[in-house]
């Protein structure tokens, strides 16, 4: 039918499983170890974090992402799982002052780190200025990407102030200006399918004290 993939295309039977290749092959030493690993309890490790100012010690399956540690273990569900693959930004939290995708980092890699989630920025009765601006400018609709947008927005204003360059900075040898063009570029790792971008830019401009 087409070059390169011929043999497979004509096969009418397909056997699958993610581990199929290893299992179908000869059972070498590596596979024996794997089989043992399957029946034993998965490896765990301890980690101590400071989450929204509160010291937290967790004993976790090493596979647990920071996102799942927050949502499923600490029950801080404000941080959202939109894609679990670093493609949407809904899981954005601030770790040691920097925003990251909490889905693409293991909790056990954050020993001693300070994590700020959306719950740590403000509460319904005491909103952070960025949270208040999102409400005022209707910078959301379904609300699912919103915690990530807000954590990112808070960090983005700091990044611009700190002089971190961006893709739209005209002259990277100079500090970036505080403009909504800079904000839009820097916020692009936070997808909002409801399409609240125009309003989010206005909310951020208000907090930054610049013209939208």
């Amino acid at each position, binding site marked *: 039918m087409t070059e390169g*993939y011929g043999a497979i295309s004509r096969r009418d039977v397909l056997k699958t499983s993610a581990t199929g*290749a290893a299992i179908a092959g000869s059972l070498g030493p590596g596979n024996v170890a794997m089989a043992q690993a399957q029946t034993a309890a998965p490896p765990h490790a301890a980690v101590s974090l400071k989450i929204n100012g509160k010291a937290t010690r967790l004993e976790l399956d090493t596979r647990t992402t920071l996102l799942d540690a927050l949502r499923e273990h600490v029950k801080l569900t404000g941080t959202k799982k939109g894609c679990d693959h670093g493609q949407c930004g809904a899981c954005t939290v601030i770790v040691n002052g920097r925003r990251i*995708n909490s889905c693409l980092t*293991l909790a056990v890699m954050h020993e001693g780190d300070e994590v700020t989630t959306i719950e740590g920025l403000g509460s319904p009765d005491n909103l952070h200025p960025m949270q208040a601006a999102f409400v005022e400018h209707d910078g959301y609709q379904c609300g699912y990407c919103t915690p990530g947008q807000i954590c990112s927005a808070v960090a983005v204003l700091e990044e611009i102030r700190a002089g971190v*360059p961006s893709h739209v900075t005209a002259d990277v040898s100079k500090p970036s200006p505080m403009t909504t063009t800079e904000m839009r570029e820097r916020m692009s790792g936070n997808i909002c399918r409801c399409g609240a971008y125009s309003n989010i830019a206005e909310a951020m401009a208000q907090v930054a004290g610049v013209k939208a």
Partner: protein
Amino acid sequence: MRPFTYERATSAQDAAAKVAATPGARFIAGGTNLLDLMKLEIETPTHLIDVNGLGMDKIEAIDGGGLRIGALVRNTDLAADARVRKDYGVLTRALVAGASGQLRNKATTAGNLLQRTRCPYFYDVNMPCNKRKPGSGCAAIGGFSRPLGVIGTSDACIATHPSDMAVAMRVLDASVETIRPDGTTRAIPIADFHTLPGQTPHVETALEKGEMIISVALPKPRGGTHIYRKVRDRASYAFALVSVAAVIGKDGKGAVALGGVAPKPWRVEEADALLPKGSKSVADRLFAGATPREDNAFKLTLAQRTIAAVLAEAKA
């Protein structure tokens, strides 16, 4: 994701030795690509050695000129470094064109070089893929190939290397400095660091088992206008259809490397010499022997036109 044991490395050499000696062991630094692939069981390490505590996060001047970038310098910090912004603008530009702010805060210099292809068939474990499962075939050939490679590919694999940073490093003639499990070190020119797929697309770099990147050295600044032009379907947070890294002097001479078109940052030194002759000559040389597919043949036109845009910008 398969279960794995986890440890924090104590020294670079120790980490290298352990990865070499332990079946299924892998380094983890930023983790943004490795964990993504582990969730899909495209990567299946059984032991992770976290190298984040090893330092290697400084950018230092090299005696006689140049910069040495620690393997663990985050993309954000590399882009924001005043020396890089002043003397290696193409590198800053390439870095900030890649991924998102969040990812750049985590992703490291070494990890960026080592990131794996974004070919959608590589990412779908139900599909044949010689890179993921050697010998299984290449579903991308004859399939949806729009984002994939047009040159340097083979009949076993048409994946592209997704990095922006590496394209800039290629035009800057960087070298990748490593430590081996026996403690010896070496410097690998970036031109030789990534390998072409041939019949072994699962082999992607010149690294030996356990060999670990400790830094990337940039030679003395290359004067001229530094440009990184990334072309994509949406304005940000997307991989390149085509990208062009260029450093071009007032005399119109310089160097150019391309991303989004090949399994590695694509540079042909003879093409550099053709820069004063214009984009068509350069593109013709860069793409001599290209094997585009129906879906991605536009990349040849796009590359030529993007080089033209870069030359116009350099002239302006």
